[in-house]
């Protein structure tokens, strides 16, 4: 059992998966988001190379209206 913190809330997955697959599992449009991984911002190309492990902290963000 792998425990994550995603956008400030606890979530867990059965077993480690790639970040990209994890995002796709939510049906997220990868072109519309950016991801913070344990405080680092990682490029889209890196998504497949990152496999999530216990305690990882993710920030998945999108653009919204702002001034």
């Amino acid at each position, binding site marked *: 059992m792998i425990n994550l913190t*995603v*956008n*400030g*809330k606890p*979530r867990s997955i059965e077993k480690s998966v790639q970040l990209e697959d994890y995002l796709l599992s*939510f*049906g*997220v449009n990868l*072109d*519309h*988001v*950016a*991801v*913070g991984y344990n*405080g680092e*911002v990682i*490029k*889209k190309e890196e998504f497949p190379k990152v496999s999530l492990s216990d305690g990882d902290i993710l*920030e*998945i*963000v*999108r*653009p*919204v*209206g*702002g*001034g």
Partner: protein
Amino acid sequence: MSDELVIGGKSFKSRLIVGTGRYRTMEDMVEAVEASGTEMITVAIRRLDLDDPGQKTLLDYIDWNKYQILPNTAGCATVEEAMFVARLGREVGKTDFVKLEVIPDPKYLFPDGAATLEAARLLVEEGFIVLPYVHADPTLAKKLQDAGCATVMPLGSAIGSGQGIHTIEEIKIIIEQATVPIVVDAGLAVPSDASLALELGADAVLVNSAIAQADTPALMAEAFKHGVEAGRKAYLAGRIGVRQYAAASSPTTDVPQPVPARS
């Protein structure tokens, strides 16, 4: 006559930067952005709702190829937060432009000058094109431009307050010493505020609440478009000076004189 605004190596014909927040509906926002004639729009970076990840984002409403996207760091109170959000914005916005805001004060949303300067230096090092939002402090403005910021964005009054420009005198000085474009941001309520800023020599203005919260946003956007045009043209046309006394606009001689009918 070509009269372009150049920021971070990019040329813009419009001197009106428009924010995309606080609209009543996304339709209002889209209409207003189009009516404004803007070429640069600000966006905020926020967490995706994972319980509704398919929800539409700005990207579904606006063609990002038509506009220079200016991600902001609104909501950040510290250098560290601002750096993080700036980097996220760079990825999602696919641009090095960032509107830097470091704002510890929730009541007036006045920026922290020292922290903004520190973050600006770090972001410039990372290759960002930094547009910092700051108090209209001429000394701070000078340090920001010397630090490599692409513009300086002094505030007119509190964000969204609709109070107009309280900082005219400071902004005049910031313009006088400017080596980068000066963009007046925050507090503008009506196009005369925008026109005034450009008449003084400001290079552009950033407007959000005044348009988004107007009774008819698209029409107000058009009004600001004209206001910015007016102010820029007036600046280029060279305004008249101020004189203490009047100057007649009609000839003061050869005025016809009535006469009494002969007796």
